[in-house]
């Protein structure tokens, strides 16, 4: 009898676990492809796709417009949702308000219009197979580029609740579209507007924000950020990372610090926002590994110098070779995470690579899915950088003071 009681208890416990699993909240997921991270804005492989696109292994090499095949090296990401029977609204918007790669968000002279093709895919409930999904008569939705990019702030894609009668999971394979291609002068005409890019060793940026609204999601909404980087050089080459993006964007205040006011009023000044993400990895990584950040006053981040973070008197783009209380003042910088609330770390500029005590660290974001994309692991964070003046300012001579904060990333996975 005692054994039977135990078996009954185990059965009841199993039933409860199954019930909990059956009523689990909806799950969203996003896998960002490495080809999204740094693209040649003059490339001719990002053509628009036809009405019934089919994924194909290999790589695109100058496919024609309306080609019905798409490849991993055209894809920005795949994102989707499962575990729901309610309708889903996905809203795509651009941080800058424009479907443009921009060199500088405050300078619209140099930009490259782009768009995305959303190719709809799903898992069939009956067969378990991965197949193209038709919603409102379409297997693909085009956004950006072919619309007036100056007026389109956001676009939505809706998965009706009836779709879940047939499919257990729906996702979008999101392909980059830059069609037509740039001419030899770095210009492209879309509608009546001519867009121009200029050669630079800096990157062009864009950030797509995707809000997924669904009644079965915890909180009702999930948000993903798709960071894009592009380059334009006369040689067509660029030495950049293809598996991670680090973006550090200064605030306007970073260019005009009233040193006396910051010190006297003990003001904490936000000088930049940052964001970091890796490509999503499916295997071969230590999911317990971490990504570390540190701020230093040296570009190499490998040697300690006594100056640390110091604003230095600057004339004709030169700083003094000998620093003193008349020509320099020390400050500290702080990383403040917005994705991991309460996470902060202070730096004095002397942090070096290898000294783990001086690292600000983030863990992996690990998601299991049953969509055929496997388990998804990526590291990401975003937030702000703040500075505080700590040195004495009483004897500083009038003039312009400059300093550079270097934001370093160390991977450990």
């Amino acid at each position, binding site marked *: 009898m005692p054994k039977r009681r135990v078996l009954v208890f185990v059965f009841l416990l199993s039933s409860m676990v199954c019930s909990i699993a059956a009523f689990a909240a909806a799950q969203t997921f996003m896998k960002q492809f490495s080809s999204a991270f740094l693209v040649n804005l003059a490339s001719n492989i990002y053509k628009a796709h036809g009405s019934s696109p089919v994924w194909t292994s290999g790589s695109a090499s100058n496919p024609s417009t309306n080609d019905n095949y798409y490849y991993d090296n055209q894809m920005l990401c795949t994102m989707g949702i499962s575990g729901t029977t309610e309708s889903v609204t996905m809203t795509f918007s651009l941080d800058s308000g424009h479907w443009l790669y921009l060199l500088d968000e*405050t300078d619209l002279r140099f930009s490259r219009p782009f768009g995305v093709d959303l190719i709809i895919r799903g898992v069939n409930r009956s067969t378990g197979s991965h197949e193209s999904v038709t919603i409102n008569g379409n297997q693909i939705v085009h956004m950006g580029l072919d619309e007036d990019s100056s007026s389109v702030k956001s676009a939505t894609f809706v998965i009706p609740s009836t779709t879940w009668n047939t499919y257990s999971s729906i996702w979008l394979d999101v392909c980059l579209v830059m069609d037509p291609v740039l001419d030899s002068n770095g210009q492209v005409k879309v509608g009546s507007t001519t867009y121009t890019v200029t050669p630079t060793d800096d990157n062009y940026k864009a950030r797509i924000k995707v809000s997924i609204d669904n009644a079965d999601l915890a909180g009702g909404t999930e948000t993903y950020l798709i960071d894009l980087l592009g380059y334009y050089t006369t040689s067509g080459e660029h030495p950049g990372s293809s598996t991670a993006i*680090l973006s550090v964007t200064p605030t306007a205040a970073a260019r005009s610090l009233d040193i006396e006011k910051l010190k006297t009023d003990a003001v904490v000044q936000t000088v930049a926002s940052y964001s970091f993400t890796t490509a999503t990895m499916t295997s071969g990584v230590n999911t317990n590994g971490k990504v570390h950040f540190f701020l230093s006053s040296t570009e190499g981040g490998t040697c300690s110098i006594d100056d640390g973070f110091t604003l230095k008197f600057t004339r004709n783009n030169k700083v003094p070779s000998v620093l003193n209380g008349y020509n320099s003042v020390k400050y500290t910088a702080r990383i403040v995470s917005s994705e991991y609330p309460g996470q902060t770390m202070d730096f004095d500029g002397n942090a070096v690579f290898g000294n783990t005590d001086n690292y600000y660290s983030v863990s992996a974001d690990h998601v299991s899915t049953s969509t055929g994309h496997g388990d998804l692991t990526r590291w990401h964070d975003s937030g702000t950088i703040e500075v505080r003046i700590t040195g004495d300012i009483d004897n500083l001579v009038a003039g312009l003071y400059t300093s550079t904060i270097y934001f370093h*990333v160390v991977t450990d996975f």
Partner: protein
Amino acid sequence: MRKLPVCLVVLLVLLLASTASLFAKTTHETGLTKALELMGFIRQYHMVEILPIEENESKTLGYGMPFDIMGNDVSYQSNKTIGRQIATWTIASTYAPISIEITATPLMNLAQTVSIDYYLCFRYNYAKFNDNGISTGSNNGYIVVSSDSNIASTDITEMPLKLENESTDGSGQIYPIISKSQDVRFMLSDYSDSEKANWPGGYYTSTVTIRIIGS
């Protein structure tokens, strides 16, 4: 005596474990490093400077000087704020508002026999603030200059130009101007191909002057 082998085994296991953990982790400085430049000021001062860019030796960058005046990247376009970047300039003052004047002489060949007119575009970009001294964005603009003083066009910026930085909330508070390392771009005036074909080969030079004339 029997304890010794056990200890050795334990030590060996510990040693192996520590070795395994040493090789399990791979730490990399990724090379993903971004520079964040800060600019601050102590009142009171003015400064203005222009720094030419030299094109690098491999000539792959596509900007800087010297450049080919027959090249597409410096040919005339209706949008005079683009063109080839040839320099950066900085203007900073705690005496805002300030008035500046920029003038340019035509390009001349060394024999002084040919004069070629052009446009320059100076971008400015400085922080603006509200009454509480909180940054509220940027003041951006373009100063378009022609080397032809006789040209009349709404595209050309009228000189002198006043740069100001009043608080955005209306208190009348005046904030400093720091516009550092913004681009200077070059574009030829609207010459036909047949006119260009008559230009003799060789170096052409010109002078650009930026003056702060009042505050």
